[in-house]
């Protein structure tokens, strides 16, 4: 790549800004093609005339679309996603309250799937063309066909009913926990409350596994193929001829090169996690952003739906940009 690294980063950031702008445009257009008067749609069926006039004024709904868009953008820049008249709070506050729960769940799921997927993938590659490999690769095809709808129900039944463990929600409401970080696993520890931590830990495992298993299957297959491909390359043959130990070759030569494509894929699959997240949070009553979206759909709260869609999109775009830039630092070949 002839382009200088800073130029590349600059273009990548520019591209992300374009994507974020596109997302805003789409959400704006969708909010204006709502059936009937948008103010009534925003306020819900119990809207009073007074409120309708106020919303019309606040969002400039009687002005041209261009002016409406300018008002929309300027409010967004101030972090104002509007108010949920149905849930009775500002949308940004509702989202801010729910985000830590979703982040925590996705992070735990991500760690589980990376550890499980990559280690089993390496195992399958080392046992290439044996029974172990056959079983693992078949399992991987099975696992990424598992819809969150089935896996969630299965794990809910298994953990909740067969094992009788606490399932649903983040923590038993009987524990009163001071919130420092918003991440329940950290907060319970910071409170020094071990039994609360265990309760929270047991509750996060089933939803996290539901998200992690399909992703682990995909990572297994990818890392297996990637390792196999790298193992046939010249520099590995050279390392073997130098009589380096198998361990050194595997970890120093093969893995470093084989894991690169996996990192990008993992970034892309963040979106898949987000999708599964809504279903999983609904099944396990996990009070995160996905559950908020479900509640908003049930209540027909368009402001919350649109605000959440926008926030999730911005996070998604940012994650992908960060992954791309990180990739640059890890792979010396791209850095050039």
């Amino acid at each position, binding site marked *: 790549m002839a382009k200088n690294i800073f130029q590349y980063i600059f273009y990548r950031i520019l591209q992300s800004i374009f994507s974020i702008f596109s997302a805003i445009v789409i959400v704006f257009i969708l909010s204006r093609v709502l059936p009937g008067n948008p103010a009534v749609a925003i306020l819900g069926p119990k809207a009073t005339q007074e409120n309708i006039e106020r919303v019309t004024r606040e969002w400039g709904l009687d002005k041209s679309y261009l002016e409406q868009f300018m008002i929309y953008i300027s409010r967004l820049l101030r972090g104002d996603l509007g108010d949920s008249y149905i849930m009775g709070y500002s949308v940004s506050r509702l989202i801010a309250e729910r985000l830590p729960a979703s982040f925590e769940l996705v992070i735990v799921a991500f760690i589980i799937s990376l550890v499980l997927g990559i280690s089993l993938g390496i195992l399958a590659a080392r046992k290439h*063309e044996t029974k172990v490999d056959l079983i693992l*690769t078949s399992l991987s095809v099975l696992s990424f066909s598992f*819809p969150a*709808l089935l896996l969630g129900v299965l794990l*809910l039944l298994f953990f909740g009913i067969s094992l009788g463990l606490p399932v649903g929600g983040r923590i038993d409401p009987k524990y009163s926990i001071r919130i420092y970080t918003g991440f329940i696993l950290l907060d319970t520890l910071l409170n020094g409350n071990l039994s609360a931590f265990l309760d929270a830990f047991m509750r996060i495992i089933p939803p996290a596994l539901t998200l992690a298993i399909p992703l682990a299957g995909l990572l297994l297959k990818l890392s297996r193929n990637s390792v196999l491909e790298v193992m046939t390359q010249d520099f590995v043959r050279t390392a073997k001829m130098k009589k380096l130990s198998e361990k050194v070759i595997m970890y120093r030569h093969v893995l470093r090169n084989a894991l690169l494509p996996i990192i990008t894929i993992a970034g892309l699959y963040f979106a898949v996690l987000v999708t599964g997240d809504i279903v999983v949070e*609904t099944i396990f009553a996990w009070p995160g952003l996905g559950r908020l979206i479900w509640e908003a759909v049930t209540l027909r709260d368009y402001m919350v*739906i649109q605000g959440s*869609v926008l926030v999730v999109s911005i996070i998604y775009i940012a994650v992908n940009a960060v992954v791309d830039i990180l990739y640059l630092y890890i792979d010396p070949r791209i850095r050039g």
Partner: protein
Amino acid sequence: MAKAFRELLMVKRVIYGIAILTLLTALSLYVILFSPFEYDQISYNVRLPPLTRSDTTWPYIFGTDNLGRDVFTRTFYAFILDVSCGLAIVTLSGLVGLVIGLISGYLGGFVDLILMRLMDIVISIPGFMLAIAIAAVLGSNIVNAILAVVIVTIPIYARLVRSVVLSVKESLFVLAAKEAGLSDVRIVTRHILPHAIPIFITQATMELSNAIIYIAALSFIGLGAQEPTPEWGLMISMARRYIREAWWPALFPGLVMFLTVLSFNLIGDGLRDYLDPKKRLSFRVLG
């Protein structure tokens, strides 16, 4: 063609996929033709466990749900509904995406720029999120849900087909066809399209399972099929509320959905490896 098909059947995964699908389709047809229960037939036999005897010729094979409806009958009606929705989505978005990709890749220049930026705008929002936003605006029913999924999946095909067009556009046979004075439409349909078809069909097969998952997930959160329509996502959503009393109304629709998605994935995966000789080698173990 026949030879290619025979060779394809050598890939075991494709056979497994086709076998599962055939079995599920046969069961569904059997249920629709011969089931003594209607999919929306409410009875007093509420939440009976699987294999309970009923007063008809069939037992309640998958048990009954909260309203005493036969879960087996509903699950297989739902198979026909969900697979049809999946096929409708893939056909519609595939065709639109194919046309956009062909035009964009072949004409290039300004048209390409506009069409591809449009596609970029659509994919700036994660697919399922956009589908939710669109379906919420259009209103909750299955047709709107299908439409929403179609819109968000068009770019997948458009970009794929465009990349194939770009890779063959400068080939000698295309240049020769141009030199011979063939019309653009003829060049695209007769000389370029055939190169895009195999990879397009593979992608469409894989997308079929995604489409089914999308439709079920939209219905699950209340933006797709509505009661009493037999649809997997909706059935699971309803059954979730009393899952501690009865597990079967939630589990069986999910299992059949899994088998369906799995079989499309197996076929698509086999197709892809079949078309890519390099991959065919590395996957030899799986068959």
